[in-house]
């Protein structure tokens, strides 16, 4: 008979598994995005804008079955209603490890090989093309790199900040604690969006896209650390009263030693969980900013700016594939929430997971 507790354990085990698996896939996409995608995310096919997702065929017009799926070239026949028809005379089978647009693997090694693709002039748009004829799939995968990078770097800034401020103010208490908490409350209460908009306009205009990205990371981290610091402080506050800490202090351990050797190791699970929980928030912050047009500038592919282009009823109804970045955001958030749920068990000393 399955008790409630074992069921909970099992589900957490699975959360951790699925979370890690999804995260792995996302990371592979992010790191190898140039290789994984058939096209450069900025290449505009001006004759193939708002093209629907390519349909994969196995049977050609003569009824011959192919083992490798193929696509047809598309042709725009009605500009008014944006109707494309397939040019069925020639088939373009999907090829793997094909040479295509040049890129630099990891930004270093010149490379031309893409995981899959079709011969020109046909195009394979797994998720259709956007309003400027850019491959939505390629943009989403590259967008994953951007989103994860933003969230990752923001975490790297926010976690140490939260850890230091949270533990110092939790451990020492008193006026320092009071001041820190008020500052944190200020950060939590400020309408972040307006501040971000103001900050963006305060920055110099002539910034390269990479610099804008970096500025955005800093801003997101600045707002992300506050709630984390509060949780760290709470944990430290309760740890401080525990016997092993009192024992360490009684044995004459210095404050830094108590914090580093006795308190921080006990915070690991909390920090990991918090980190996993924060990532979707950070990603959404980037998406929101880009959606409003204040984030990553063109031509860098961002999920937010991609979604902004389908901001009208007409677009939503007719060109639904442009909503795909929404699904990407959902999957990414899901991955991190699953991970957070699995990780939260690490905080439970009676956990039977690991």
């Amino acid at each position, binding site marked *: 008979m399955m008790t409630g507790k074992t069921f909970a354990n099992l589900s957490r085990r699975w959360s951790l598994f699925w979370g890690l698996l999804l995260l792995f896939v996302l990371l592979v996409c992010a790191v190898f995005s140039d290789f994984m995608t058939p096209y450069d995310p900025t290449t505009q096919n001006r004759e193939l804008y708002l093209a629907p997702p390519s349909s994969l065929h196995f049977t050609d017009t003569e009824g011959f079955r192919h083992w490798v799926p193929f696509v047809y070239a598309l042709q725009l026949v009605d500009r008014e209603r944006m109707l494309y028809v397939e040019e069925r005379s020639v088939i373009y089978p999907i090829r793997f490890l094909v040479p295509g647009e040049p890129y630099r693997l990891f930004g270093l090694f010149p490379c031309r090989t893409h995981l899959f693709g079709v011969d020109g002039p046909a195009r394979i748009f797994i998720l259709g093309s956007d309003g*400027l004829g850019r491959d939505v799939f390629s943009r989403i995968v590259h967008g994953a790199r951007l989103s994860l990078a933003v969230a990752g770097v923001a975490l790297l800034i926010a976690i140490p900040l939260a850890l230091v401020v949270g533990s110092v103010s939790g451990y020492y208490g008193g006026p320092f604690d009071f001041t820190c908490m008020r500052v944190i409350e200020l950060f939590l209460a400020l309408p972040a969006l307006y501040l971000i908009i103001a900050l963006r306009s305060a920055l110099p*205009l002539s910034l390269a896209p990479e610099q804008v990205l970096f500025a955005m990371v800093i801003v997101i981290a600045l707002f992300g650390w506050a709630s984390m610091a509060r949780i760290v402080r709470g944990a430290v506050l309760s740890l401080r009263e525990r016997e092993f800490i009192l024992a360490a202090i009684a044995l004459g351990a210095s404050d830094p030693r108590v914090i580093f050797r006795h308190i921080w190791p006990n915070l690991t699970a909390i920090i990991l969980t918090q980190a996993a929980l924060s990532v979707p928030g950070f990603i959404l912050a980037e998406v929101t900013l880009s959606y409003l047009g204040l984030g990553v500038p063109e*031509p860098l592919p961002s999920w937010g700016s991609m979604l902004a282009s389908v*901001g009208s009823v007409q677009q939503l109804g007719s060109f639904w594939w442009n909503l795909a970045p929404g699904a990407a955001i959902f999957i990414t958030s899901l991955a991190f929430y699953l991970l957070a749920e699995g990780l939260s068990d690490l905080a439970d000393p009676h956990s039977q997971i690991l």
Partner: protein
Amino acid sequence: MLSVLRPLLGCFCLLIVVIANSNCDRRKSDGGRSTSTAQQHSSGNQLVISKSAGPRTFNRLISADEQTNSIADCLMGRLIRINRQTQQPEGELATAWQTSSDGKTLICELRRDVKFSDGHPFTADDVVFTFQVLNDSSIGSPSSDPFDFDGQRTKVEKLDSHKVRFVFPAPYAAAERLLDGIPILPKHILEPVYLEGKFEQAWTLSTPPETIVGLGPFKLKEYVAGQRVILSRNEHYWKTDKAGKRLPYLDELIISIDPDRNTQLLKFQQGETDLLSPVNADDVPALAAMEQQGKIKITDLGPSMIREIFWFNLNGSIKPKSGQPKSGHTLVDPVKLRWFKDVRFRQAVSYAIDREAIVRLVFSGKASPQWGFLSPGDRLWFNPEVKKYPYNLDRAKSLLVEAGFHYQIDKGLFDPQGQPVTFTMITNAGNTIRQKMSALIQADLARLGIKVNLATLESRALLSTINESLNYEACLLAIVSGDTDPTSHVNILSSRGITHWWHPQQTRPATDWEARIDDLMKRQMNTLNPTERKRLFDEVQAIFAEQQPFVFLVSRHLIVASRADIGNLKPALLPDFVLWNCEELYWR
């Protein structure tokens, strides 16, 4: 979408007038007939239209935005109206007008037996009072600028109970057109308020509707904040149709306030509203099916007065107004300024932009490429003979090479000093159209070897950047004309103009061609002969196209959708596109 444009709209109607002239212009209007050309129809029913913003006031004299103006214009009468369809002035409360031989005075005959919506008769006193308020600098009416000649105000004198004389400090060619924007206020209601010094607080959004009295076809019935404005028929309105029936035909005109354009579209599709103006090009396919069923009518009026442009910042190190060179401070990197100032660079950029792609991808074909200053929609003044810049990458490259730039394989374009050519273009955030256009331009110029960075700014920040701080490199935006008369463009064309964006408020023209434009503009203002004015303005347009201080891209089409059974609807390119003749609209 037009959020940036709206506050600007006001600016374009403003005029800086410096004139000296002695010509004669006599124009007669319909000679006092108070009949509309409208056909006889059954009156009744109501008409609903969506607007993206509600009114900010019901006091037309102190309103500065397009939405407020178009609502207030239904409530207020004016002396002379510009017929939006013919783009020519026609008499409203003035039955006839005459410009003196020196061009400095304008005498208007006023219509007799006209009553305000409360039944009070309209006389010359009301006109004099209106201009007294308009000229009061403490009121600061946005409509007053055209009547301000370097600090000297236009005088208005009462000749008899139904005749007034306008005395301008300097001659002005199209003076009567200015009267289109001036609502005639009821002296008997507003004078006591004005004398108390509370004019600005009169006729606000919380004022009881019955105290808002005007000469327009409608009167205010109800205002529900943030939701709708209900206007009802003014029984005292003076205009009648050919059969002698009093206008307006409609009993009620309802303005539904829907800031979101999706809401506007859905409401129109579901029949909650009767007019959709303007329609976005993207939304046309959604409406086309309804049109085929004969339920609605979509009117494509062709290129509108909204022209998409981008330009390079040509400001040197001198701040405007102060006129003081700031030592060691430059607004634009001197290296880049050197490129921007070279006309061949600007022309090359213009050649390198694929305007057809913008028309197709950004406006779904509902726009026209443009190279000169005016939109082809400006029928009277448009000069089709200007230099054009069809997409031609080779021509662009050879122009750059001629100007001393050179190419390095795989590295792009370098200037004569060996600097890579790159600049940042700003535009307004949250605007899908501009975002798409900027991505297209970026890709086009990349083919020319120029790296363009994009920065989007929130609308107000953008306006303050291009109007005040001036520390940007290039900007993508649009300009709109409130009128078609050349003088209405003075703020853009004159080197002293505020919206001479590439280098505003110059104390003296920075270049020969700007000096030439200044001179031509001054001459056309002094000239009362329309053919001569056209010739002068044609030259202005030719210089503008040659020099490309604004790189004109496209002018989007104005598209209007309406229920098929609205009669007398005469959509036009000047605002308000559909309601300008609201007194004649009716249901078939």
